């Protein structure tokens, strides 16, 4: 068994563990797990940009937003997407997310670094502005309530059934994104991340690579939005606001950028602290803050970097004194 196969096996085992364990917890934990999984599709989509292409986007919530608003508007106005046509809404959500990213990408991909950050932020806020001000369509500040989840043979109103559905979508997205980043295309993305100029000299159309990655990330964002709308039961401008994008970015960094799985770990921890710990203690914000600060200070590679650091720390005593100090400097 090669190293990579072992990693995959681990993730599969973890997924199976989730399948077995979560439904046996109480219904609130199931609800939280569903929320974290639906959101982590967005975080993973961001990770394609952040971790694999080196583009930090601050507007990722926009794609979740269009997917979610599409679902809510179709369901409440046209009673569409509440039966087998749910699958059609999934497809439409993905297409809409991708289409929006295709438009935004034209504007954003030209820039890099902090300029890319600012353009995506501005574009994301445009979507927020629309959601907030287009009262007749989006319900403005009050948002849109969904009444009931789809029913097609299985009834998604059942929290456990719905949890399995979201988990299935999550697993499928993880698999697709994994295949994507391991493909030659994904490898060239990593090349762009490391040194774009060299890739360009080697004859790669780096703009097109980044653009396609951006569109794909938008598509996954749209999917995450459709699931999110049914998970939360309400879609409001709060879902597209800047802090939601920042949340996604922080979760990706917290779990470990460039690992995909880190996204779900980050999402799990943030949702766990913000929505579970906050029901137990009033000082949950300090814990969340401390987790962020400590991660940034000591684990620039995120929580997924912990094993690597332990390995290095174990290996270091054999080295001379100077090297040991060097090794302990966070890189």
């Amino acid at each position, binding site marked *: 068994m090669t*190293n990579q196969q*072992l*990693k995959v096996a*681990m993730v599969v*085992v*973890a997924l199976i*563990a*989730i399948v077995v*364990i979560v439904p046996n*917890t*109480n*219904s*609130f*934990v199931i*609800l*939280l797990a569903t*929320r974290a999984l639906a959101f982590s599709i967005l975080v993973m989509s961001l990770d394609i940009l952040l971790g694999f292409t080196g583009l930090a986007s601050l507007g990722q919530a926009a794609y979740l937003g269009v997917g979610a608003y599409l679902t809510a508007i179709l369901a409440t106005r046209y009673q569409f997407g509440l039966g087998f046509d749910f699958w059609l809404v999934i497809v439409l959500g993905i297409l809409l997310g991708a289409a929006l990213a295709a438009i935004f990408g034209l504007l954003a991909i030209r820039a890099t670094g902090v300029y890319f950050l600012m353009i995506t932020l501005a574009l994301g806020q445009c979507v927020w502005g629309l959601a*907030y*001000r287009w*009262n007749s369509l989006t319900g*403005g*500040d*009050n*948002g849109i*309530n969904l*009444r*009931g989840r789809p029913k097609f043979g299985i009834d998604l*109103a059942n929290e456990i059934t719905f949890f399995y559905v979201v988990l299935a979508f999550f697993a499928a997205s993880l698999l697709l994104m994994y295949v994507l980043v391991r493909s030659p295309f994904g490898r060239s993305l990593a090349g762009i991340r490391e040194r774009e100029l060299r890739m360009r000299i080697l004859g790669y159309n780096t703009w097109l690579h980044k653009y396609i990655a951006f569109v794909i990330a938008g598509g996954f964002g749209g999917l995450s939005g459709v699931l999110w709308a049914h998970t*939360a*039961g*309400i879609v*409001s401008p*709060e*879902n597209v606001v800047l802090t939601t994008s920042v949340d996604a970015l922080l979760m990706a960094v917290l779990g470990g950028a460039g690992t995909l799985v880190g996204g779900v*770990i980050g999402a*799990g*921890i943030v949702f*766990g602290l*913000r*929505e*579970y710990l*906050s*029901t*137990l203690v*009033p000082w949950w*914000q300090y814990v969340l803050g401390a987790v962020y600060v400590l991660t940034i200070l000591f684990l620039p590679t995120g*929580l*997924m970097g*912990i*094993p*690597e650091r*332990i*390995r290095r720390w174990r290996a270091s005593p054999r080295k001379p004194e100077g090297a040991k100090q060097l090794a302990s400097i966070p890189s």
Partner: protein
Amino acid sequence: MTHTWLRRAGQLLLGLSLALAMRPVSTAGAEELRIGFVAPTTGIFAQVGKDMVDGFQLYLDETKSDFGGAQVKFIVEDEQGKPDTAVTKAKKLVLQDKVQMFVGGLLASSGYALAPVSTAEKTLYIPTIPAADDLTQRDLAKYPYMIRTGWSSSQPSHPFGQWACDQGYKKIVAIGADYAFGYEVIGGFQKAFEDCGGKIIQKIWPPIGTKDFGPYIPTIKQDADAIFTLMVGPMSLQFPKQLAASGNKKPVLGGGTSYDEFVLPSMGDEVIGHVSALQYSAALDTPKNADFVKKYRAKYGKVPSYYSESNYTTAQMIHEIIQKNKGKFPGAEEFIKQLAAMKVDTPRGPVTIDEMRNPVQNIYIKKVEKKKMFGYDKDELWNTVIKTYPNVGQFWTYDKAAFLKQPVYNRDFPPCKFCE
């Protein structure tokens, strides 16, 4: 690298087992009344949330949490000012804590988010603060397990529009926060004012959270007799200051939240003489309110706002129903039926509930004055009541059916006929 991944998986499993270990077990005693309370206790609305919780808590302390034999278990959950967090927390209260009812929510959006949870979970929901008109108007049929004890946004605005007309104002400029609550408060005022013969000659909508009104104040039309404002939060503090600095001499009227007791203590003398309308004023000179204000102030060091009063009153209403049922929760539908048939004497005055589950209550026209009240020795700003409209319902004097046929007040309704 192999054991790297083994350890990574170990981390994951450790996390999972921790999550499982934290799983609480809820056991319910026979004589226990579990009340869930959803309010923002962190984030930008945390201070308002504190007023809400304090109001409810004060009543519990007074009664030692004993509601006619039932011991109240009061569980506060933080909605963080976000509608979907409010939903998650309400579900937590229902599914995990098995509460008999959940109370609260702050923003209209939270109210709209929480009401469907009550329908889906068949659990009683009491919106004490969310004032969105349609919760108890056009959308009422969707929420059979909800009964409102606070107010609807346009409820104080209708009599206020009439009052402004009675003062002889002919032309008024409205300036208000650009969101649903603002539209409803200003819409109600405009309807009543124009039905009486007045004219709203201009509507200005600064975005919510505006701190610099420099671009808006100079555009206010000079031929107006008065200015009607609807501000919320920090906007309430900034607007009167900047308006005064611009040399304004026109009378200023305002929606309830522009001058409620949550913002009033932080305001300067520039607001003296401003008039607003709401169902509560801390300066209400009744023995019941004087008692409430003194107790609240002694305990929390500040004057109660309508956020506190509404939740205090709601606790009182729940108490009276449970007492009537000898310490048993009668079920959501029966609870609503009994509460709707009840007349409650509260700090804000007598309250009954109409057939659309919204309170019928006094609306007070209040003028900000600097004076001493209730034996406190310092001059402070108080919302002195200058006129009381008794027993005002959400439809005011309008025909209910006709009222419900018109759209909910929004940015374009009522249309601004007299704007140029």
